Protein backbone atom coordinates (compact mmCIF):
# COMPACT_ATOMS: atom_id res chain seq x y z
CA UNK A 1 0.00 0.00 0.00
CA UNK A 2 1.31 3.48 -0.78
CA UNK A 3 0.62 6.86 0.74
CA UNK A 4 -2.23 7.89 -1.53
CA UNK A 5 -4.03 4.61 -1.11
CA UNK A 6 -3.67 4.86 2.66
CA UNK A 7 -5.02 8.42 2.70
CA UNK A 8 -7.89 7.46 0.42
CA UNK A 9 -8.85 4.61 2.74
CA UNK A 10 -8.61 6.93 5.72
CA UNK A 11 -10.83 9.49 4.02
CA UNK A 12 -13.41 6.82 3.24
CA UNK A 13 -13.52 5.85 6.89
CA UNK A 14 -13.99 9.50 7.89
CA UNK A 15 -17.12 10.10 5.81
CA UNK A 16 -19.39 10.71 8.85
CA UNK A 17 -17.42 13.89 9.46
CA UNK A 18 -17.81 17.14 7.53
CA UNK A 19 -15.76 17.59 4.38
CA UNK A 20 -13.78 20.37 6.02
CA UNK A 21 -12.94 18.18 8.99
CA UNK A 22 -11.90 15.33 6.69
CA UNK A 23 -9.65 17.75 4.84
CA UNK A 24 -7.99 18.91 8.07
CA UNK A 25 -7.33 15.37 9.22
CA UNK A 26 -5.98 14.21 5.87
CA UNK A 27 -3.74 17.27 5.86
CA UNK A 28 -2.28 16.30 9.23
CA UNK A 29 -1.57 12.77 8.10
CA UNK A 30 -0.08 14.05 4.88
CA UNK A 31 2.40 16.08 6.93
CA UNK A 32 3.30 12.99 8.94
CA UNK A 33 4.40 11.37 5.70
CA UNK A 34 6.49 14.46 4.91
CA UNK A 35 8.25 14.35 8.27
CA UNK A 36 8.81 10.62 8.31
CA UNK A 37 10.05 10.57 4.74
CA UNK A 38 12.63 13.15 5.74
CA UNK A 39 13.72 10.80 8.50
CA UNK A 40 14.31 8.23 5.79
CA UNK A 41 11.32 5.99 6.36
CA UNK A 42 9.59 4.30 3.44
CA UNK A 43 5.84 4.67 2.91
CA UNK A 44 5.34 1.03 3.88
CA UNK A 45 7.12 1.56 7.19
CA UNK A 46 5.16 4.72 7.92
CA UNK A 47 1.85 3.04 7.17
CA UNK A 48 2.79 0.08 9.34
CA UNK A 49 3.59 2.45 12.20
CA UNK A 50 0.36 4.43 11.78
CA UNK A 51 -1.83 1.34 11.69
CA UNK A 52 -5.16 0.50 10.15
CA UNK A 53 -7.09 3.48 8.65
CA UNK A 54 -10.31 2.26 10.22
CA UNK A 55 -8.80 2.22 13.71
CA UNK A 56 -7.39 5.70 13.17
CA UNK A 57 -10.76 6.99 11.92
CA UNK A 58 -12.51 5.39 14.90
CA UNK A 59 -10.43 7.49 17.28
CA UNK A 60 -11.54 10.65 15.51
CA UNK A 61 -15.17 9.58 15.36
CA UNK A 62 -15.09 8.70 19.06
CA UNK A 63 -13.62 12.08 19.82
CA UNK A 64 -16.53 13.70 17.97
CA UNK A 65 -19.04 11.36 19.62
CA UNK A 66 -20.17 9.67 16.45
CA UNK A 67 -21.18 6.07 16.76
CA UNK A 68 -19.25 4.88 13.78
CA UNK A 69 -20.48 1.30 13.84
CA UNK A 70 -24.05 2.39 13.76
CA UNK A 71 -23.21 4.58 10.84
CA UNK A 72 -21.36 1.88 9.00
CA UNK A 73 -23.90 -0.87 9.32
CA UNK A 74 -27.12 1.03 8.86
CA UNK A 75 -28.08 1.80 5.33
CA UNK A 76 -29.49 5.17 6.22
CA UNK A 77 -27.04 7.99 5.81
CA UNK A 78 -28.11 9.60 9.07
CA UNK A 79 -25.04 11.32 10.49
CA UNK A 80 -23.82 11.89 6.99
CA UNK A 81 -22.40 15.21 6.18
CA UNK A 82 -25.27 17.60 5.57
CA UNK A 83 -24.36 19.31 2.30
CA UNK A 84 -23.46 16.10 0.54
CA UNK A 85 -26.69 14.45 1.59
CA UNK A 86 -28.85 17.32 0.38
CA UNK A 87 -26.84 17.46 -2.82
CA UNK A 88 -27.36 13.77 -3.42
CA UNK A 89 -31.05 14.10 -2.69
CA UNK A 90 -31.52 16.97 -5.15
CA UNK A 91 -29.51 15.10 -7.75
CA UNK A 92 -31.61 11.97 -7.29
CA UNK A 93 -34.86 13.91 -7.56
CA UNK A 94 -33.70 15.53 -10.81
CA UNK A 95 -32.48 12.18 -12.07
CA UNK A 96 -35.79 10.55 -11.17
CA UNK A 97 -37.89 13.24 -12.83
CA UNK A 98 -35.95 13.26 -16.08
CA UNK A 99 -34.70 9.69 -16.38
CA UNK A 100 -35.70 7.42 -13.50
CA UNK A 101 -39.43 7.91 -13.87
CA UNK A 102 -39.37 7.30 -17.62
CA UNK A 103 -37.28 4.18 -17.18
CA UNK A 104 -39.83 2.99 -14.65
CA UNK A 105 -42.67 3.94 -16.97
CA UNK A 106 -41.23 2.04 -19.94
CA UNK A 107 -40.48 -0.98 -17.74
CA UNK A 108 -44.11 -1.02 -16.58
CA UNK A 109 -45.40 -0.73 -20.15
CA UNK A 110 -43.07 -3.48 -21.35
CA UNK A 111 -44.01 -5.82 -18.51
CA UNK A 112 -47.70 -5.07 -19.04
CA UNK A 113 -47.49 -5.91 -22.73
CA UNK A 114 -45.59 -9.12 -22.03
CA UNK A 115 -48.26 -10.07 -19.51
CA UNK A 116 -51.07 -9.31 -21.98
CA UNK A 117 -49.30 -11.25 -24.71
CA UNK A 118 -48.80 -14.23 -22.44
CA UNK A 119 -52.45 -14.28 -21.36
CA UNK A 120 -53.49 -14.01 -24.99
CA UNK A 121 -51.28 -16.96 -25.91
CA UNK A 122 -52.62 -19.09 -23.05
CA UNK A 123 -56.22 -18.28 -23.93
CA UNK A 124 -55.67 -18.75 -27.65
CA UNK A 125 -53.73 -21.99 -27.45
CA UNK A 126 -56.76 -24.38 -27.51
CA UNK A 127 -57.90 -22.76 -30.75
CA UNK A 128 -55.00 -24.37 -32.57
CA UNK A 129 -57.12 -27.53 -32.62
CA UNK A 130 -59.89 -25.74 -34.56
CA UNK A 131 -57.54 -23.91 -36.90
CA UNK A 132 -55.57 -26.96 -37.86
CA UNK A 133 -58.45 -29.24 -38.83
CA UNK A 134 -57.16 -31.52 -41.51
CA UNK A 135 -53.64 -31.51 -40.20
CA UNK A 136 -52.65 -34.41 -38.02
CA UNK A 137 -53.81 -34.36 -34.41
CA UNK A 138 -50.26 -34.81 -33.25
CA UNK A 139 -49.16 -31.75 -35.21
CA UNK A 140 -51.85 -29.48 -33.79
CA UNK A 141 -51.23 -30.85 -30.32
CA UNK A 142 -47.55 -29.93 -30.51
CA UNK A 143 -48.41 -26.44 -31.74
CA UNK A 144 -50.88 -26.15 -28.82
CA UNK A 145 -48.19 -27.23 -26.34
CA UNK A 146 -45.69 -24.80 -27.80
CA UNK A 147 -47.99 -21.78 -27.60
CA UNK A 148 -49.30 -22.70 -24.15
CA UNK A 149 -45.77 -23.30 -22.86
CA UNK A 150 -44.38 -20.03 -24.20
CA UNK A 151 -47.45 -18.21 -22.82
CA UNK A 152 -47.01 -19.68 -19.35
CA UNK A 153 -43.27 -18.92 -19.38
CA UNK A 154 -43.86 -15.31 -20.37
CA UNK A 155 -46.53 -14.93 -17.69
CA UNK A 156 -44.20 -16.28 -15.00
CA UNK A 157 -41.43 -14.01 -16.25
CA UNK A 158 -43.57 -10.89 -16.24
CA UNK A 159 -44.90 -11.65 -12.75
CA UNK A 160 -41.47 -12.13 -11.22
CA UNK A 161 -40.02 -9.11 -13.01
CA UNK A 162 -42.94 -6.98 -11.78
CA UNK A 163 -42.24 -8.11 -8.24
CA UNK A 164 -38.58 -7.20 -8.58
CA UNK A 165 -39.51 -3.84 -10.03
CA UNK A 166 -41.93 -3.19 -7.20
CA UNK A 167 -39.39 -4.13 -4.51
CA UNK A 168 -36.78 -1.97 -6.23
CA UNK A 169 -39.09 1.05 -6.33
CA UNK A 170 -40.03 0.66 -2.66
CA UNK A 171 -36.35 0.42 -1.71
CA UNK A 172 -35.51 3.44 -3.80
CA UNK A 173 -38.27 5.53 -2.21
CA UNK A 174 -37.24 4.46 1.29
CA UNK A 175 -33.66 5.38 0.52
CA UNK A 176 -34.73 8.81 -0.74
CA UNK A 177 -36.73 9.28 2.46
CA UNK A 178 -33.70 8.34 4.56
CA UNK A 179 -31.73 11.08 2.87
CA UNK A 180 -34.07 13.73 4.24
Amino acid at each position, binding site marked *: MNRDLFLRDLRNELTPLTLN*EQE*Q*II*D*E*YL*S*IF*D*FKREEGMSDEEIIKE*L*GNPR*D*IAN*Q*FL*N*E*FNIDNNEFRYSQSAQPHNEERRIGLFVFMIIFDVFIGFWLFFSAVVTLFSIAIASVAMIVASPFTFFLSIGVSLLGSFSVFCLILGVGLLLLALSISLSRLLFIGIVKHINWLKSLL
Partner: protein
Amino acid sequence: MNTQFKKGILELCVLCLIKRKDMSGYKLVEELSKYMEVSVNTIYPILRRLTNEGILATYEIYDDTRKRKYYTLSSPGKEFYQQLYDEWNKFNQSVERLLKEENSDE
Protein backbone atom coordinates in the same frame (compact mmCIF):
# COMPACT_ATOMS: atom_id res chain seq x y z
CA MET B 1 -6.58 3.27 32.66
CA ASN B 2 -10.02 4.73 32.14
CA THR B 3 -9.87 6.28 28.69
CA GLN B 4 -11.97 9.32 29.57
CA PHE B 5 -9.67 10.04 32.50
CA LYS B 6 -6.56 9.52 30.42
CA LYS B 7 -7.91 11.76 27.69
CA GLY B 8 -8.50 14.55 30.16
CA ILE B 9 -4.93 14.37 31.40
CA LEU B 10 -3.55 14.15 27.88
CA GLU B 11 -5.58 17.23 27.03
CA LEU B 12 -3.90 19.09 29.89
CA CYS B 13 -0.46 18.00 28.70
CA VAL B 14 -1.23 19.02 25.12
CA LEU B 15 -2.45 22.45 26.20
CA CYS B 16 0.55 22.94 28.47
CA LEU B 17 3.06 22.27 25.69
CA ILE B 18 1.21 24.46 23.19
CA LYS B 19 0.96 27.23 25.78
CA ARG B 20 4.72 27.17 26.10
CA LYS B 21 5.31 27.25 22.38
CA ASP B 22 3.18 27.11 19.25
CA MET B 23 3.90 23.97 17.28
CA SER B 24 2.72 21.61 14.61
CA GLY B 25 0.80 18.46 15.48
CA TYR B 26 3.73 16.28 14.58
CA LYS B 27 6.18 18.26 16.70
CA LEU B 28 3.74 18.17 19.60
CA VAL B 29 3.61 14.38 19.50
CA GLU B 30 7.40 14.28 19.43
CA GLU B 31 7.55 16.53 22.48
CA LEU B 32 4.96 14.50 24.36
CA SER B 33 6.82 11.29 23.54
CA LYS B 34 9.70 12.52 25.65
CA TYR B 35 7.47 12.18 28.69
CA MET B 36 5.04 9.41 27.90
CA GLU B 37 4.09 6.84 25.35
CA VAL B 38 1.72 8.48 22.87
CA SER B 39 1.02 8.13 19.19
CA VAL B 40 -0.21 10.58 16.59
CA ASN B 41 -3.41 8.57 16.38
CA THR B 42 -4.37 9.48 19.96
CA ILE B 43 -3.17 13.09 19.91
CA TYR B 44 -4.54 14.24 16.57
CA PRO B 45 -8.18 13.63 17.45
CA ILE B 46 -7.71 15.65 20.63
CA LEU B 47 -6.13 18.46 18.64
CA ARG B 48 -9.00 18.47 16.15
CA ARG B 49 -11.63 18.55 18.86
CA LEU B 50 -9.90 21.29 20.84
CA THR B 51 -9.66 23.30 17.61
CA ASN B 52 -13.34 22.82 16.88
CA GLU B 53 -14.17 23.90 20.41
CA GLY B 54 -12.18 27.10 19.91
CA ILE B 55 -9.66 26.27 22.62
CA LEU B 56 -6.91 25.95 20.06
CA ALA B 57 -6.45 28.03 16.92
CA THR B 58 -4.33 27.22 13.91
CA TYR B 59 -2.25 29.20 11.49
CA GLU B 60 -0.14 28.16 8.55
CA ILE B 61 3.52 28.80 7.92
CA TYR B 62 5.29 28.03 4.68
CA ASP B 63 8.77 26.65 5.05
CA ASP B 64 10.51 25.68 1.82
CA THR B 65 7.54 24.98 -0.37
CA ARG B 66 5.57 23.12 2.20
CA LYS B 67 2.93 24.49 4.48
CA ARG B 68 3.02 23.65 8.13
CA LYS B 69 0.03 24.01 10.37
CA TYR B 70 0.79 25.40 13.81
CA TYR B 71 -1.45 25.15 16.82
CA THR B 72 -1.71 27.99 19.28
CA LEU B 73 -3.75 28.62 22.41
CA SER B 74 -6.69 31.01 21.83
CA SER B 75 -7.57 33.50 24.58
CA PRO B 76 -10.56 31.45 25.82
CA GLY B 77 -8.15 28.53 25.53
CA LYS B 78 -5.77 30.16 27.97
CA GLU B 79 -8.57 30.56 30.46
CA PHE B 80 -9.64 26.98 29.92
CA TYR B 81 -6.10 25.77 30.43
CA GLN B 82 -5.78 27.66 33.70
CA GLN B 83 -9.03 26.16 34.91
CA LEU B 84 -7.98 22.66 33.93
CA TYR B 85 -4.57 23.18 35.50
CA ASP B 86 -6.06 24.33 38.81
CA GLU B 87 -8.50 21.44 38.84
CA TRP B 88 -5.75 18.98 38.17
CA ASN B 89 -3.56 20.48 40.89
CA LYS B 90 -6.32 20.30 43.45
CA PHE B 91 -7.16 16.76 42.49
CA ASN B 92 -3.54 15.72 42.46
CA GLN B 93 -2.97 17.12 45.94
CA SER B 94 -6.00 15.33 47.31
CA VAL B 95 -4.88 12.03 45.83
CA GLU B 96 -1.39 12.48 47.17
CA ARG B 97 -2.68 13.34 50.64
CA LEU B 98 -4.89 10.27 50.56
CA LEU B 99 -2.09 7.98 49.49
CA LYS B 100 0.30 9.35 52.10
CA GLU B 101 -2.22 8.88 54.86
CA GLU B 102 -2.67 5.30 53.81
CA ASN B 103 1.08 4.80 53.89
CA SER B 104 1.38 6.24 57.40
CA ASP B 105 -1.27 3.81 58.61
CA GLU B 106 0.86 0.87 57.66
